[in-house]
């Protein structure tokens, strides 16, 4: 069964920025806004007021704005990882579970090194390494199942998402439960020295911002400027042809999964050390799925992932403001979903028009 995306099939909004293309993409955005506004009207809310309060919620204060950046960090890291698998023609839908596993391993490392008296920054470093290992481990599983078991990576990844979440829940209620009573609200918080400090007056840790920039630049260079990136792209376009031309496709598939898992693990470690400070059942916060949407929008263009991820992060943060209008925070998902949907559809219409001309 050929579920793998082919380069020609995958949606890409930002390929050649000619004016016509720009206009077509703008159409997609407008359509998405029209449909989202319609949904707001159905929910008996004033659309303009809702959009205004989202902007308020995202950029109204320094705290809010830095929260957007803090949320941009794991999203751009997740997207970067997914660009590797996308380029290789793989749908790593297991990203969410890989982030959860990263968080699990990070918390596990803190529990081990907690009492050893090691320097806190060394412990944090070790915890990040553990998180990375957890992510890589969980990402290689769907890769191995695809290559040696014939299981499509979409189904392998989906199943593993749930297994990772179950593992987290089991740890929270079982071996890692809080002293006294186990609770769905998570494990015990890590000690203060292990938490990454925020820049005073903000909600943002400088360390994670630096990590995100390094990851994004690394991804752009690897995919755009190296033989590795070119080979990965060749595999994504046609893996059989690439194999015949001498590219070890199996190894590259696993490398793409491994790199994606590495970034997933780092994202998980970041969420533990700078946001949640503990392991919770929903340790991935949906960043894996959101990252897939962003990666679909930007396709092979790592530079744009930073921009789109910022927009998505602003939506997700700003959208919490809607509770004052009596709406819940699934609105961001609705707008993001419509956006990707219409980009895919409008892009299809554009291609159809181009071939007809």
């Amino acid at each position, binding site marked *: *069964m*050929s*579920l793998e*995306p*082919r380069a020609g*099939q*995958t*949606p890409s909004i930002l390929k050649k920025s000619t004016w016509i293309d720009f206009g077509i993409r703008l159409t997609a955005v407008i359509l998405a806004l029209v449909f989202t506004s319609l*949904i707001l009207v*159905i*929910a008996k809310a004033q659309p303009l007021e809702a959009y205004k309060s989202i902007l308020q919620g995202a950029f109204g204060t320094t705290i809010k704005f830095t929260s957007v950046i803090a949320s941009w960090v794991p999203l751009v890291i997740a997207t970067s990882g997914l660009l590797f698998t996308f380029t290789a023609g793989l*749908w790593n*839908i297991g990203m969410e579970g890989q982030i959860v596993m990263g968080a699990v391993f990070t918390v596990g490392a803190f529990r081990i090194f907690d009492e050893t008296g090691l320097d806190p920054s060394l412990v944090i470093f070790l915890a990040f390494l553990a998180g990375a290992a957890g992510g890589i481990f969980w990402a290689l599983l769907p890769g191995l*199942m695809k290559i*040696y*078991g*014939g*299981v*499509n990576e*979409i*189904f*392998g990844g*989906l*199943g*593993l998402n*749930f*297994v990772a*979440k*179950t593992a987290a*829940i*089991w740890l929270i*209620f079982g071996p890692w439960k809080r002293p006294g009573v186990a609770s*769905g609200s998570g494990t015990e918080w890590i000690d203060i020295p292990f938490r990454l400090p925020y820049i005073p007056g903000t909600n943002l840790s400088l360390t994670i911002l630096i990590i995100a920039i390094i990851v994004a630049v690394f991804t752009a260079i690897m995919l755009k400027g190296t033989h590795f990136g070119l080979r990965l792209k060749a595999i994504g376009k046609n893996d059989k042809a690439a194999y015949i031309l001498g590219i070890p496709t199996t190894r590259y598939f696993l490398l793409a999964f491994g790199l994606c898992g590495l970034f997933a693990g780092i994202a998980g470690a970041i969420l533990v050390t700078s946001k949640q400070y503990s392991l919770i*059942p929903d340790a991935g916060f949906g960043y894996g*799925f959101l990252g*897939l*949407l962003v990666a*679909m929008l930007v396709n092979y263009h790592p530079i744009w992932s930073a921009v789109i991820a910022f927009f998505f992060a602003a939506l997700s943060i700003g959208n919490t403001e809607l509770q004052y209008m009596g*709406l*819940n925070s*699934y*609105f961001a*998902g*609705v707008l993001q*979903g*419509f956006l*990707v*949907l219409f980009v*895919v*559809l409008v*892009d*299809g*219409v554009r*291609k*159809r028009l181009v071939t007809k001309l």
Partner: protein
Amino acid sequence: MDVATLTTLAGIVEYAVPVLFASIGENFTEKAGLINLSVNGTIILSAMSGFVVAMTVDSIFLGFLVGAVVGAIVAAIVAFSSITLKQSQVAIGFVLALLCRDLAYFLGAPYTNKPGLFLSKVPIPVLADIPFIGPVFFNHSLVVYASYLFIIIAYVFMFKTRSGLMLQGIGERPSAAFARGANVKALRYFYTILGGLLIGLAGPMYSLAVKIGWAGQLSGLDGIGWIALAITIFGGWNPLRVAFGAYLFGGLQQLGITLQSTTNIPIQILQAAPFPLMIFTLLLVNVGRAEWVDRELAAMPEKPRIVLSKILRALRTSPPASLGVPFENE
């Protein structure tokens, strides 16, 4: 046989019903050569809209109808994007899976935990009095009886009628079917929308019959659609085997409910139990095709080799040959 066992068995039969409709619906779509990956979102959205409509207009029938229409519309978007626009089927399906779920949670918020309508049990006279069989199979709501008929109709249609043969043709060798006069694209549209309609029915089956009510993200429906997709593969694109998979899943869910009352395993763990099993069964049905398995088998002594390859061949399923491949008339 004691009452508790009978209740459990009856529960399995009931819990399997929505998954059964969704999986066989997807079976129709995939037989025609398309993949509708939106199942998970479709079920949640149609469960919400079916529940809300039934409650507001006081009609269970309209609730089911709206659920089916929601499923058909989502499937029509998948069909348009894949068949007419030739965009990636995975992309559109995945986006719709997320979008429909969030739409359901967003629009359904005001109706969370509100009392609504539900289908009551209608024991079938005479049949319901047969010991064992009666309480397990014939003391249910109408949707359960509909599912018995549906399995048979789906099987007979797919494998014993001319239209069914045509359906197989457009999924296996669309160019040959086209040469023999089939309108491949129109038929693919038809079966994708038909499949979506059946998937859409699964939603109100939950909210109006099997897992009554709407509780937002706590409705416990998130994830079932992905399982339904896996069951279609597990069932080898054969409605009978797919139905068997759905009953297995129903059994696992019932087992969870039973274990929950007798042990202190957290409910979340029991709810997730089918997923590792799903991966395992997918490995089982797929591994027979892997190259390294052939190599290993060839190196084995004769007796275990024959037994093993027989088992693997019995488990192995193969998808319609043109599944996921766009079709061009020219």
